[in-house]
């Protein structure tokens, strides 16, 4: 029974990856950059196969408002081919590592005309079925604050501060209560010892009995009073 289960699981594991043998490509979703700066667009992929020597990366660019995409980069046969005629000539550089499944490119000296969608397509023969992934580039004069960053930080800071104050308050109360408890315990201990001492003195000499008796009575009274206070 167990052997049949083991065999079935091995067969299933062998079959399943073969069916879902699509290549999965990862790029960012959106990239923000300042005018005149450089930006690195990353592209990576996941494939069930080992990285083959014929792995290819290709980047294409579609400007905002344009209908067609133009090809700006291609890596094949172990050599990168960058754009030398289009809008990115002399501004594009290959900074990826195909052996590590990284097909990133570096765009230099960005301009407002570079707003658009960059699509990365990677193929890892024989794993060639997959969907290309796109990253949107937005070029700004000054870096924007994303929606919700200030909101989230204000809420988090205030709530955190309130929580801290509450915790500190209860901690102080707990510590003060413990100190009071320790003090009262030590008081009790001293009184007990005093009583024993006075009783011992009462034993051998009876003439000095009165003051020691008074002492014992006084300490007894004090003990009762402290008990009442505690209540």
């Amino acid at each position, binding site marked *: 029974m167990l052997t049949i289960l083991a065999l079935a699981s091995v067969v299933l594991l062998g079959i399943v990856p073969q069916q879902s043998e699509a290549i999965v490509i990862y790029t960012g979703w959106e990239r923000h950059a300042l005018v005149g700066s450089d930006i690195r667009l990353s592209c990576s992929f996941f494939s069930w196969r080992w990285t083959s020597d014929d792995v290819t990366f290709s980047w294409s660019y579609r400007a905002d408002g344009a209908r067609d995409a133009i090809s700006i980069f291609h890596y094949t046969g172990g050599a990168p081919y960058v754009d030398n005629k289009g809008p990115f000539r002399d501004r594009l550089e290959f900074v990826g590592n195909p052996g590590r499944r990284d097909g990133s490119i570096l765009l230099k000296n960005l301009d407002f005309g570079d707003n658009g969608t960059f699509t990365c397509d990677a193929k890892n023969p024989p794993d060639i079925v997959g969907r290309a992934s796109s990253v949107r580039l937005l070029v700004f004069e000054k870096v924007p604050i994303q929606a919700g960053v200030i909101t989230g*930080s*204000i*809420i988090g800071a205030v*709530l955190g501060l309130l929580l801290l104050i509450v915790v500190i308050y209860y901690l102080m109360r707990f510590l003060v209560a413990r100190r009071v408890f320790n003090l009262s315990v030590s008081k009790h201990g001293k009184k007990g010892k005093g009583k024993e001492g006075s009783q011992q003195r009462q034993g051998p000499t009876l003439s000095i009995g009165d003051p020691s008796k008074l002492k014992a009575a006084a300490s007894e009274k004090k003990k009762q009073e402290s008990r009442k206070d505690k209540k």
Partner: protein
Amino acid sequence: MLVILTFIILFHVISGILLFISTINNAWWVISAPGGSVIYTDLWYSCNVTCLPVKNSASTDAAYLQAVQATMILSTILCCVGFFVFILQLFRLKQGERFIFTAVVQLLSGLCVMIGASIYTAEREGFTEESLRKGGYGSSYVLAWVSFPMTLISGLMYLVLRKRK
């Protein structure tokens, strides 16, 4: 005692509901366009027939709008937390003690509403786009200002209330 308790709880719940509505409903600023359509805008969306996110909500101009969003959310959270703290204190306090913790939370909530509504009033011009500048204050704005004295009074009531058997 029971009557006072019901009244206070009702007051607290109503102020909480007002805060929720004011925060969530996108009607802080109302523009009646000449074409006949009415546009409701702020804090989160500008709504006509379809709702679009408030323009500029991803730039430093919208820092004030984000601050208003944050304070309104904070005040709503604090009002809800205050309600739970009140229930907790109702069962844990000794006789004769005051509901100080609840009062503090409610007063903080009122403070946040006031801060939020004030910032909105002062800086509205900064984060509204040109076409939406002419208009009037909407229902959510009024509700926000109404919930400020409500939370304030609620907090003061908790400060005065003493626990009885």
